[in-house]
């Protein structure tokens, strides 16, 4: 496939891929790799559970160590604080952190400080033990919250560290010294971890993007294989037919048989020629750069299309265009080819000598070309599929199975679109919309 490599280097696309990567739903419906949003939700839940473990663990630790001898320990108050911590831990465990935004979990921090301060205020005489709790809180902040949060939380932590010292008897010197080293260390740890997390998330996002692209490329590659296999099948069939008919022609075949086989071979060669032409067209059809856009007088353009289509359709072609003196911007050759493909398609499907209507009308932002036949229409559900390459096999009676794919490609190259209004059993109206 010419240009396949350069196409793959850009955003995944390819004329063999049809609609797969054009709609946003492709990304939304993507499975196989866990989406980043799902993963972040999981992480928020996990961090909420970690906070809960901290609350429950601290509460349990306090209750377990309550009977140990400690001078100046207010056992009733400490037990109350521990029970409150346990209860808060249970609430935090069951809270739906995954459904809430990331910032929401910041609310678990101030109560933690308050409980540490209370326990410290009612507790023993050694404030050094409490520095461990602060470090744990800041590690959690670093993991769960964006950079800067630790810095913002530092005054709160300092207050929680220092206020209980006022209620303690005796020398507050060791407590102050401990706070002066612990709080800056906490901020450093928290900010350091947050900084690392930001970088990790960036790498993670990039990795996800790459994985998604790789997945897309793999699918694209499969579709390309399927397309190539269909194309080679279509090209092989005429060869098989020619070779078969020539093989089975007897050496003493009559003139009539020779004539019949010759005609058949010529028809098949014509079909191959058309197939190759259409494949070549399709390969570059949705490339905008290949268009030569011009300002076209609509009337002149339509009459040239009609004069080309007349030999094919004769008086069955009815043209309906009330616009006069208007112009449109398009590549005249390509747009004419799209309309001719639609007219040929309609001619094949309309009943007997039924009419084929070509209609042009102006929409607010575009021109709409419609080709209507009153044939059998499409089977319901086939409306989008008919635009896929080789949806219908080629035949020596004229079609290659690529005509509508080319129409779609041309419409898209113009920034427009194509479609069909299907009336099963009563006909179909194919349309192209070209922006003004």
């Amino acid at each position, binding site marked *: 496939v010419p240009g396949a490599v350069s196409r793959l280097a850009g955003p995944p696309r390819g004329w063999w891929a049809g609609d797969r990567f054009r709609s946003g739903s492709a990304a939304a419906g993507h499975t196989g790799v866990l989406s980043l949003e799902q993963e972040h939700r999981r992480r928020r839940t996990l961090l909420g559970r970690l906070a809960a473990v901290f609350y429950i663990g601290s509460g349990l630790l306090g209750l377990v160590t309550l009977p140990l001898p400690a001078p100046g320990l207010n056992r009733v108050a400490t037990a109350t604080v521990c029970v409150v911590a346990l209860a808060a831990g249970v609430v935090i465990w069951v809270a739906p952190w995954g459904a809430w935004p990331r910032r929401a979990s910041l609310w678990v921090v101030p109560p933690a400080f308050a409980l540490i301060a209370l326990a410290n205020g009612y507790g023993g005489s050694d404030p050094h033990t409490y520095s461990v709790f602060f470090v744990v809180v800041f590690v959690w902040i670093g993991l769960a919250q964006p950079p800067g949060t630790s810095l913002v939380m530092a005054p709160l932590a300092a207050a929680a560290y220092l206020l209980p010292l006022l209620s303690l008897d005796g020398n507050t010197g060791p407590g102050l010294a401990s706070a002066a080293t612990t709080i800056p260390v906490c901020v450093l740890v928290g900010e350091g971890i947050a900084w690392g997390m930001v970088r990790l998330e960036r790498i993670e996002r990039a990795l996800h993007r790459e994985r998604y692209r790789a997945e897309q490329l793999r699918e694209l590659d499969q579709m390309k294989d399927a397309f190539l*296999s269909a194309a*080679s*099948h279509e090209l092989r069939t005429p060869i098989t037919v020619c070779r078969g008919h020539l093989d*089975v022609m007897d050496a003493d075949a009559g003139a009539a048989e020779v004539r019949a086989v010759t005609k058949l071979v010529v028809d098949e060669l014509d079909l191959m020629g058309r197939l190759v032409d259409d494949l070549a067209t399709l390969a570059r059809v949705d490339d905008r750069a290949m268009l030569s856009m011009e300002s076209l007088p609509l009337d002149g353009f339509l009459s040239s299309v009609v004069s080309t289509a007349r030999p094919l359709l004769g008086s069955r072609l009815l043209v309906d265009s009330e616009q006069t003196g208007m112009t449109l911007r398009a590549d005249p050759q390509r747009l004419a080819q799209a309309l001719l493909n639609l007219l040929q398609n309609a001619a094949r499907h309309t009943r007997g000598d039924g009419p084929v209507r070509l209609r042009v009308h102006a929409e607010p932002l575009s021109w709409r070309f419609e080709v209507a036949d009153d044939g059998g229409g499409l089977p319901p559900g086939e409306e989008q599929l008919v635009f896929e390459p080789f949806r219908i096999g080629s035949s020596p009676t004229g079609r290659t199975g690529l005509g509508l794919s080319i129409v779609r490609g041309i419409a898209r190259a113009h920034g427009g679109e194509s479609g069909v209004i299907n009336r099963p059993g009563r006909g179909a109206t194919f349309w192209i919309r070209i922006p003004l």
Partner: protein
Amino acid sequence: VKLLVVEDEPRIAAFLAKGLRSRGYDVAWASTGREALELGVGPGLSLVILDLRLPDLDGLEVLAGLRARGTTVPVLILSARGRVHDRVRGLDLGADDYLAKPFAFEELLARVRARVRPGTAAPAALLRAGGICLNEVFPATFT
């Protein structure tokens, strides 16, 4: 000798039927997989020539369907899918022979002959009469 040609493309079926009939075979034609499943279990059938690309069923499904219906009629796959892995798959699924399109008609005939022989030990191409044996394919060879 009765053959069934399963081929959705009438242009190919036409010359297959013509060529095989001119060699004296009795040819039936099925253009869809369902038709093939109906005709493929009929009595007196000596060989099925099966295309893999059919409008309703995949040719390999037809093959599996025939085998599931208990018929042991030889099946020759005639397909545009000619890669090694396609051939191996077809043969593994119970086909007796595989020929890729486009093909030489002579080769198809030779393969058909090989399959419709009553037994590989005594090829149909050998005519026996008493102690004399005539090889139809190589008429100069007497054994």
